[in-house]
């Protein structure tokens, strides 16, 4: 199981990083989604992998249990990354409709044209 979890984290991360480097909004959004899946699986695995064990200590049963904290962390992280992705989709859509381009560059592609319009 370890090899499956580890390689899925690796593949998702690699795909996510590749897509983020495309510098266009749609691939970047997909890339960030892949990265957040990768980090969720990674967080989930950070409490050791165990099969068929309850996340709480049973009073009379087997003393072994799986760590519940990473599951709580993953739950929070999923909600947050989901909300963030939704915000990014909306803002990216707004930026695309305003400017007609979907590029995400550090400097605007037209070079350092006049910065006059930028204030309000």
């Amino acid at each position, binding site marked *: 199981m370890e090899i499956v979890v580890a390689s899925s984290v690796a593949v998702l991360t690699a795909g*996510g990083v590749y897509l*983020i480097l495309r510098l266009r*909004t749609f691939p*970047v959004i997909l890339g*960030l989604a892949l*990265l*957040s899946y*990768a*980090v*969720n699986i*990674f*967080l989930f*695995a*950070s*409490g*050791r992998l165990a099969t068929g064990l309850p996340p709480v200590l049973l009073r009379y049963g087997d003393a072994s249990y799986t760590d519940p*904290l*990473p599951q709580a*962390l993953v739950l*929070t*992280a999923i909600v*947050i*990354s989901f*909300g*963030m*992705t939704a*915000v*990014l989709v909306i*803002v*990216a859509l*707004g*930026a695309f409709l*305003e*400017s007609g381009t979907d590029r*995400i*560059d*550090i*400097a*605007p592609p037209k070079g*350092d044209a*006049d*910065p*006059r*319009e*930028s*204030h*309000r």
Partner: protein
Amino acid sequence: MNHWIIAPVILPALLAPLIAFIMRHDLTLARTTSLAGAVGIVAIAVGLTVASADGETQVYYLGNWPAPFGIVLVLDRLSALMVVLTSVLALIVLVHAVVTGWDARGRHFHALFQFQIMGICGAFLTGDIFNLFVFFEVLLIASYGLMIHGGGRERMQAGVQYIVMNLAGSTLFLFALGVLYASTGTLNIADLALRLREIPIEDASLVRVAAMLLMIVFALKAALFPLQFWLPGTYANAPAPVAALFAIMTKVGAYAIIRVHTLAFGPDIAATGPLAATWLFPGAIVTIVIGAFGVLGARALLPLIAFSVLGSMGTLMVAVASFTPEATLAALYYLVHSTFAGAALFLVADLLLSRRKDQTLIPLPATVQNGLFAGLFFAAAIGMAGMPPLSGFLGKLLILDALRDPGQMPWAWGAVLGGSLVTIVGFARAGSALFWKSTSIPVADPTGSDRGPATPVRAASALEIAPTLTALAVLAGLSVFAGPVASYLTQASEQVFDRDGYIGAVLGTAAEDQP
């Protein structure tokens, strides 16, 4: 257990939904509520500072769970100081946004503003790294909304860059937390510090990875080289009052580095050693250089101010990077100063640009109240550049005085002094283009190429200038009362380095006595 500790988080968290859902069609009511909330948080923050002044680290156990298992909020002198700083800055910025009408240019300004305050205060108060992540996300998601408040092509594009950059940072933060939890089994900062001390150095490679990942994330928030690229574009394109509020957001990164990297990954802990300082110091030096030359090279006012904020973050982090109580005292003094100096500059720029219609640094006919704006800009600029009599001078002096280690002194002194000089030149050039040369151009001159149709330019009322003056008065007050402030900050930085006191307060016997 002092229940007021959680009030700076709870109060805005309650006000924001109220404003968003009940008062969204009534701007006057939203303004009143938001301002009242901001005043309330200032009062609470001052009360917390008084409560923490005796040096006792107070801990708030959420749900009364004992510390390593439940979530804790920790109030010591440093976090009380940061909360006061946030609340006062927020009040100043909020008044400015209300009297200049910025809050009416888009929807939900006040709700987002309250959420932003909640996230920042929470990040300063929390004693748990995962909670720090959650509060980071709260303040970031509010800042996304504020950043694109008012809309416009460039602002939306800069907003997308800002969001993408921060989402990548958040993912990195989670990876760091995963590594940390896998290798230590805890996310409570005090518990983490305790366990990291016991990890032998040969088993500590994962912990070192986590420490560096965390430092990368915090450096991204603090806009430190090589992760500074987002700041100029974001700050220059954000609405000016929002950019003034963002002056505290870079400090969240600086605070997180001070807190986590002194307490848990300190230089004298075998597992990590001087790892953080080794990378932080050159990054800060390069940041100062980039900021200074950005100020010199900027061709518009808001990018110029954004680069000066970048330079001040570099100066701040140079002091943080040495991780000694003396340097931390200097860093904290400069942190308070640079927050208000950056905010004052953005507020002056907003007052000016709402009357000038063009932010490029070329002479245009003088606006109304040219002398007044020139004076305000001059005061804010000498504050930012670090000239006497304002507190930037004392802050830089303290930083230089604390960095006397022969290995770092030539670099730090050279960068701070040279950076200040270049910044002064940049500000002088900008000021002369904006204010001085303007007076020689007749008003009817059509040289300003694409100015809009001639609208009557309104003179700034006393109320509009008051927030800027308050920010400048804080700078003046910081230098007049430098003695008392410095003695408070000395105690605060000593408390930061008193690791056993912090760990004992959070995990110690006090926790077990709780009912």
